[in-house]
């Protein structure tokens, strides 16, 4: 199972625990944190750009700052790379066991075909959970249609794989002052569930990125307990399938 938090924001956090610390916590729980900084006009600011980089670094993921029209593509690419990276990590260990090297290019050409075939089959079938965490502070308002499009697009791609793929969506801050984060869409693989998102969203000024990440970690861990038996069938045995 690959678990990913994908944070989409346009600025700096300003409330609560440091989001970099929260992302490090996610990594501890085997959840990868990727971050997309999104802008239409203007600038994300030096502070924001630094924070985005650091959150991704602490969360074992990647970061990118893009304009709204590149958002869908970026979300796709990051998810794909996260899956590939995780699978390669596992396969490399197997290669090391079988061939004494973890670098594909140290394998003779004819041995590579099988190794990559195994990687691809795993990539296609491993269960994936993506929790999207959307900054909905006031400045994000104009970007939400693009965010929704990107989520719908990701949903279609997850659904097109052979393995199980689900996403859920949180936005932050929540409606009232005590809510740091709100669940806007529970686990789904149906794209039609994505379309009504954010239709009645009231935007607020604060950006409690750190507390929001912590909340999503808890949610992902607790929902895993519930879905674990269903997902178990997707686990893959790769022992001896390479050599």
């Amino acid at each position: 199972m690959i678990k990913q938090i994908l944070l989409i924001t346009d600025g700096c956090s300003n409330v609560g625990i440091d989001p970099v610390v929260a992302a490090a916590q996610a990594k501890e729980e085997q959840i990868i944190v990727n971050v997309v900084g999104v802008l239409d006009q203007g600038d994300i600011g030096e502070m924001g750009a630094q924070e985005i980089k650091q959150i991704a670094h602490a969360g074992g993921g990647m970061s990118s700052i893009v304009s709204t029209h590149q958002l869908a593509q970026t979300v796709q690419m990051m998810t794909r790379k996260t899956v590939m990276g995780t699978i390669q990590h596992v396969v490399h260990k197997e290669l090391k066991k079988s061939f004494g090297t973890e670098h594909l290019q140290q394998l003779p050409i004819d041995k590579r075909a099988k190794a990559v075939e195994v990687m691809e089959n795993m990539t296609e079938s491993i269960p994936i959970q993506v929790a999207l965490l959307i900054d909905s502070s006031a400045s994000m308002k104009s970007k939400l249609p693009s965010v929704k499009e990107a989520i719908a697009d990701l949903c279609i791609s997850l659904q097109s794989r052979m393995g199980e793929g689900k996403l859920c969506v949180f936005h932050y801050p929540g409606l009232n002052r005590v809510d740091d984060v709100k669940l806007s869409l529970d686990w789904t693989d149906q794209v039609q569930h994505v379309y009504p998102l954010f239709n009645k969203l009231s935007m607020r000024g604060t950006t409690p990125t750190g507390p929001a990440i912590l909340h999503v970690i808890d949610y992902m861990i607790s929902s895993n307990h519930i879905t674990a038996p269903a997902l178990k069938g997707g686990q893959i045995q790769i022992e001896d399938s390479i050599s």
Partner: protein
Amino acid sequence: MNTQSNQKMDITIGATVQGQWNKNKYVLMEKLGEGANGQVYLVKSKQRKLAMKIAYDPVDLQSEVNTLAALQKHQDPSYIFDVDDFSFQHKLYSFYVMPYFKGISITEYVNQNGSSWLYVIGAHILKQLVSIHNKGYVFGDLKMSNVIVDQHGKCQVIDYGGATEKGKAVKQFTDIYDRAYWGEGSRVADEHFDVFAMSMLMIQTMNPNGLEKAAKMLPQHRNIDMLRKIVLQAQSYDHLKPWVIKGITQSFTSSLEAKQYWHQLMKRTSSKAPISSLHGWWLYPAFISAILMFLTSVYYLLW
């Protein structure tokens, strides 16, 4: 995993690279294309012109080689001449070598030689799609820059980076050719996916401005009715319109049926088609070679 890295590889034209396993030498003559995951060069080896695809990630390259191997299993001549690695600036790059195909884009060809050539070009594309489908694969990333037309109107689909086994998620695709982009289905590799992309290719040739405008619309406004309108508004290619409508509505049962229907339309327009050359082309043994213009792919996936 690192943050996004943009590996740049700047090999000088004229340089010679040598594979470390098979020891073959290649002189780089011209960069043919560059994309997010690699570069393609025209190379010379033993006085022969060939095309070389160099990938930034050996996994991507091997994945494509695997697909090509599966597709070419019972085919002669082989599409892949060599697979190897070379070292450049202390880094290993994986590459494969394939035939070099010289030509121009569909749009350029049709503008230079007349619109009736589109029937010939389409027939050739469909023939190649049917052949790929019969082997259990889908081409995936069919688009303008992945079709090369030679001076006789013979054409070749190139760049198998998107080729995917049927039933799996399409590895690489480009938004305007992607049926999911238009709200018309999934990205599961099936024959309709390619036929849809082929239809979009035709729409792009028939009514490029209409399509460009539509592609910029918000997703909730992008749909099949809009595409239908663009088809019907096209100034020419009236005979082709029924085929394109069937293609975008995915109402062919298979690519073979799509191909047969295309041939029917061709017969109806044969009075206008360049018959003599068509005849010659049709019997020409399909010795195939290819350039690989790399992706300016907006999207690519490798699930």
